[in-house]
């Protein structure tokens, strides 16, 4: 829905970025678990799995960046103020946009964290 010529924020837009983190986390874990089980040949490298996780990581980071970009632009367009305790729809939007931005930053960092094991572990040991 559009208000003030921009997307109206709500609780779903707020949790979109951490939801992407959740997807990335489950995808990485399930794929690695599936690839490594039954755990018969633990010294075999799992390049394909690692590449797939890296690919999904890139997509997820991009989506989170898009969410962050939208939140940032709309928050800046509205003056980018940190004060959002007024009784106006603008203050509500400002609050949700800034909180979305913060959650997107956290989710970005968390997705990067989640990808680090792929760089370190090359097999199923």
């Amino acid at each position: 829905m559009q208000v003030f010529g921009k997307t109206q924020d709500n609780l779903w837009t707020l949790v979109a970025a951490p939801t992407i983190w959740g997807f990335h986390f489950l995808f990485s874990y399930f794929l690695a678990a599936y690839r490594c089980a039954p755990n018969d040949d633990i010294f075999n490298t799992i390049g394909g799995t690692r590449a797939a996780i890296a690919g999904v990581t890139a997509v997820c980071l991009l989506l989170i960046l898009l969410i962050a970009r939208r939140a940032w632009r709309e928050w800046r367009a509205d003056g980018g103020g940190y004060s959002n305790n007024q009784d106006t729809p603008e203050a509500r939007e400002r609050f949700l946009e800034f909180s979305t931005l913060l959650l997107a930053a956290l989710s970005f960092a968390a997705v990067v964290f989640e990808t680090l094991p792929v760089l370190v572990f090359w097999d199923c040991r």
Partner: protein
Amino acid sequence: MTDTTDRTPTGPDQDDEAVRRAQEARLREVWAAPKGWRYWSAVNNTEVGIWYTALSFIFMLSAGVLALIVRAQLAVPENDLVTPDFYNQAFTLHGTAMMFLFAVPIFEAVAIILLPQLLGARDLPFPRLSAFGFWCFLIGGVFVMGSIFFGQAPSSGWFMYPPLTTEEEFTPGYGPDIWLLGLSFIEVASLAAAVELIVGTLKCRPPGMRLNLMPLYAWYVLVVAGMILFAFPPLIAGDILFELERLFDWPFFDPSRGGDPVLWQHLFWIFGHPEVYIVFLPAIALVAMIVPTFAQRPILGYSWIVLAAVGTGFISFGLWVHHMYTTGLPSISLGFFSAASEAVAIPTGVQIFVFIATLLTGRVIHSVPMLFVSGALANFVIGGLTGVMVALAPFDWQAHDTYFVVAHLHYVLIGGMLFPVAAGVYYYWPLVSGRKLSDRLGRIAFWMMFAGFNLAFLPMHYSGLAGMPRRVWTYPESLGVGTANMISSVGAFVFAAGILIIVWDVLRPRGNEPYAKRNPWNAGTLEWLVEMPGESWGVRSIPAVTSRYPIWEQPNFIDDVDNGRFYLSDAAEMKRETIITSVLDGKPLQCLRVPGPSFMPMIAAVFTGAMFIFATFHWWAATIVAMGLSTISIMVWLWRGTAVIPEKPEKDVGLGLKLPLYKSGPHSVGWWAMFIMMMGDATAFLGLVFGYYYFFTIHADFPPPSTVGPGVLWPTVAFGLFAVAWATAFGARLSNQAGRIGRARVLMAAGALVALAASAALLWGPYVTGLRPTAHVYPATVWVITIWTAAHGVAGSLMLGYCLARSLAGRMTPAHDIDIFNVALYWHFVGLTVIVTVGTLAYLPVLM
């Protein structure tokens, strides 16, 4: 609807004292708690919340006594104060009760008291559901806790790992069954509370309270209730598998027949780790209310707290395997969980910094609640730091199952939860009883608790690193941890003495000690509108809010509320009422009639509890009778108390605003409750499906090639019949809405019958192909998923029958169609369940 933008508090008649007195008399009568023995039929948040809180504290004290027995036993090496078996029961019940009977219920209990006050609401939308939750908690809690007096308490650790707990030779008796069935029952109550609190936070805010003006406590409640919704169902799924193995020998966790004990660990910790944050966040929420009051300024960085709450809520679901680092999973898997365990420190740390910054920029008033908050932050930070250590797999391999972990978890839970709760007790006691607790006793209690706690748990870091294992009833002198353990035991008793002082302070006779002055801490949020002593109506009139701290920032606010110059200052029709508002901006949408006192929630809880308790002792006939009575009592409760057609379509709620009295579909709170409940239900179902795919992953051949599955024919027939039942439910809703009542009734009757046929067809598949659930984990998994889905079909059939009866009785009409709207929503979820069930059980094996 009339214009809602003008919220200037006015109303000429409110200046007439006689008018106000008459309004107050009506409100007082409508909201009064029942007298005499009928008192126990009360459902108002002011009664139920207090019972709930008191009972949680009683369980906490009982579990604390068990901890003291444990510490007495461990005070000296090679002690034989208690038997190993009693020691096992004591530490298991200590952990179980502290988590399930204190930490989680106290959140629900306190939220039931505080949330309506914080939102200026008269009550939460489903008071009888809260009462039902309380009675379930009472019955289940007494059942679990009482088992120790019969020497039958669970004795295998609070996480009940199989095969220790599934093999009769290791754990004879009823201990694990009491744990599984008693706690499953309480988990149902927790889910009920989660539904109540989510709908309460989103829909019962006062007019004008936009999302950005919501008290931080409400944000935390929203996040935590959401977490309960996704964390508890996997444990319920695990409990179902576990109990089927214990009662009927279905081999889910038995490796000799294809099962795997690690599956239980997954399902338990998918619940168990978010649980830690479910416990921690509501306590921190209390801190978020206390800190601004004593800094005498608004919280600094409101958005950052919301970031912390929401961020922690999500990431806490990615930590569960850090309890399973030593189960032999591939290192890459451990890496993912280690990464998330480190990442969660970011949002957790952010809120600590926000509190410190708020205190630094304010003028801090020294007080007992602030003392407990300071102690909480200090202890929690220590627990957080050891948490970052044990989140690293290599360190954890060393520390796992030692007293180092015991020290870590107690620093986190006592620092992060018990100290904030103690702060909350001192802060909110005037709201409950109209009087402050003693400052002097509070200070003594704090210093005894703080010193005793650190004395008890700091040495455990050393004991653990020196090699002392957890859950072992004694230790040899040669281990060299005798002194450390003696200090720990002394500290534990000092800590317990501190708690007893608080108990004394709460219970001591007050004589004619005067009531506290109103808003005794000079706080800014709505809960302090309460009068000393409080009235059971909550607020005199439901205010229009324009600020985060209305008492501080809105001029003449308390006076306007008290003189009924805001909304619903009267109960002209002698009904309990509150206002429903929109999610984003708190626009008034409906005047909701909330139900009053009733024994039905208690009766329903008694029968439901009886069902679980009879099953524990394998009294099957009694179990089935109790199940029937429980279903009937719930239906009687719903029939009499829900979706009541009002005597007029709308009413004037004050300030020239007219609101409808009845709303259905997505505009009704009942629809929201059904939606939220079914999200939890779907999560439990996914827990069972997770089991299927888990076995699919770990076994090279699953389904085993030698076994036939449920076939394709009967699942397909069931799928078709379920599709018809779904369509009739949906069609009945549309027909009824369009005024074609006759057709709607035919569809409801047909749907009820087809749903039964569909369930039967689904069950017929594995029956006719001769799948024996005790033979191997594959048939057992097929059966459990089939039974789950079929049971939902039967419940859906009952619901359609109920709607038909409502329609025939004139309690459901085209304009008043809450029942069929909610049942149609239920059927959407059943539809999805059927698609996953049939797809997984019948078609996937064909495709693979």
